[in-house]
């Protein structure tokens, strides 16, 4: 990305006849399509350029600092030399744990998919219960409030002791980390169903099941997705941490493995992967939320 932008910026620089380039920005009478395309391009540039500039500044500062302190972190240029193979070939597979980063990320994502799906289902169910029953709220909410503060890694020894196997333990840690924001936000959403919608349900004499599916669930959907979005972010945090301890294939273990091998450059490349995948996960859940709750928040 950064490289492309740089080459775009430097395009006018070659010593070609400038007349060819000049007419492009604002022709006197642009056709409507061209004007629209130009506007869209400008808007995209406005969105894409600032973060690229930030990234560039970070890389430059990092580079200068690292070059002057050879004992510290490797400079970006150093990472490129050290880990070029890892960056350029995410798909290689030499068997065992010697795989490209794509495969590590995919394995971690599969774990997240399972653990998080369980958390979503159980979390929404519990959230609806806590949100709609005062008794359930009194009975469960204090427990939830205490349990949700337990850090993900603290659950790991407990789940290992209970389940004896690495993989289910990792899944449990994801599950237990992601479930709290889902429960809490769903409960808030259920409690905040507008009085007007409740009254509509009462006047229509909807059955409890009809009320649940036709009014309560759609009205709470924006809240539920807020919870799911926080939850998916937290489960991605948990997976990396838990894999570090569990071993095998996965981004978390990859980082731990490279740390033991003192390959800091590889770790930094893996961190970029972790960040980008986490970002994509968050956007993915947000997108589904937007599609599912089409206009549910607008009156």
């Amino acid at each position, binding site marked *: 990305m950064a490289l492309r932008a740089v080459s775009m910026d430097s395009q006018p620089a070659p010593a070609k006849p400038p007349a060819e380039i000049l007419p492009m920005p604002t022709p006197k009478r642009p056709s409507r399509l061209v004007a629209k395309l130009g506007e869209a391009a400008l808007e995209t540039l406005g969105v894409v350029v600032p973060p690229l500039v930030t990234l560039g500044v970070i890389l430059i500062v990092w580079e200068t600092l690292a070059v002057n302190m050879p004992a510290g972190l490797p400079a970006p240029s150093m990472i490129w030399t050290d880990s070029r193979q890892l960056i350029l070939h995410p798909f290689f597979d030499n068997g065992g744990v010697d795989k490209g980063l794509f495969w590590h990320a995919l394995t971690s994502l599969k774990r997240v998919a399972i653990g998080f799906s369980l958390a979503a289902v159980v979390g929404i169910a519990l959230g609806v219960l806590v949100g709609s029953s005062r008794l359930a709220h009194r009975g469960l909410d204090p427990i939830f409030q205490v349990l949700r503060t337990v850090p993900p890694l603290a659950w790991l020894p407990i789940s290992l002791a209970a389940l004896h196997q690495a993989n289910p333990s990792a899944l449990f840690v994801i599950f237990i980390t992601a479930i709290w924001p889902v429960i809490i936000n769903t409960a808030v959403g259920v409690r905040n169903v507008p009085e*007007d*919608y409740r*009254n*509509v349900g*009462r*006047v*229509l*004499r*909807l059955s409890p099941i*009809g009320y649940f599916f*036709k*009014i309560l669930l*759609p*009205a709470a*959907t924006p809240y539920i997705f807020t919870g799911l979005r926080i939850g998916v972010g937290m489960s991605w945090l948990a997976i990396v941490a838990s894999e570090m301890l569990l071993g095998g294939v996965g981004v978390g273990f990859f980082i731990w493995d490279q740390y033991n091998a003192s390959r800091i450059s590889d770790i930094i490349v893996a961190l970029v992967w972790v960040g980008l995948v986490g970002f994509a996960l968050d956007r993915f859940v947000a997108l589904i939320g937007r599609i599912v*709750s*089409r*206009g*549910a*928040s*607008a*009156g």
Partner: protein
Amino acid sequence: MSKAYLSIENVGVTFKGRGVVSEVLRGVELQVEKGEFVSIIGHSGCGKSTLLNLVAGLLPVSTGAVIVDKVAVEQPGPDRAVVFQNHSLLPWLSVYENVRLGVDQVFKGTRSRAERHDWTLHNLGLVQMTHAKDKRPSEISGGMKQRVGIARALAMEPKVLLLDEPFGALDALTRANLQDSVMEIHAKLGNTVLMITHDVDEAVLLSDRIVMMSNGPAATIGQVLKVDLPRPRRRLEVDMLPAYVAARHAVVAFLHERAPGVRVAAA
């Protein structure tokens, strides 16, 4: 006593909460005939919305009873459909689906799928909203939303149609349009209508009788006025008639003299 179609008999409402007991309504007595259009007018906070909610069944009476077609009201139901002040359309459903939800709920056992579809469209046609049937509430104007709200209520074939300040949130021109539509529909279908309003002209133009509420606490009916205007009423033809002017004057006089608005200090 309960010969009338809708009968509100010696109704009182008392709210209790946190040790404070407040009596909102006391001894409300009102009979509404089938096909009659009755407005309830009063200052804000006089309990007129409470009264409507009692008929809707959304609130329980503390004393007395509300009887619709010889049956005491105990819970809300589609036979007393409400048009809410803020339309209360479900934003995740289209205009058609909002009306269809009510139709399905009421006629599931008695009408076929095709009949329910036709009935939904018929009611959207009554309020001239067929053109927007696939839009979502957020995509149409406030006046249109209220039209859909009316269609949803009408489609349930209620015994009593309850309008809770249905046009209060609309601008004057849109309001006039909707009032005309409601008059047309009332002329065509002969519904029994109970409408809450704080607009004197609206009450005079639309109603057969205007019920004026005294101020709370313990509000009750202060005066009932029969509006002696021939139907169909056309806005521009009736508003100069002596009967219209007299009715208007009587309501304004009641609101300002017999039940003057709550002083700022008390509000």
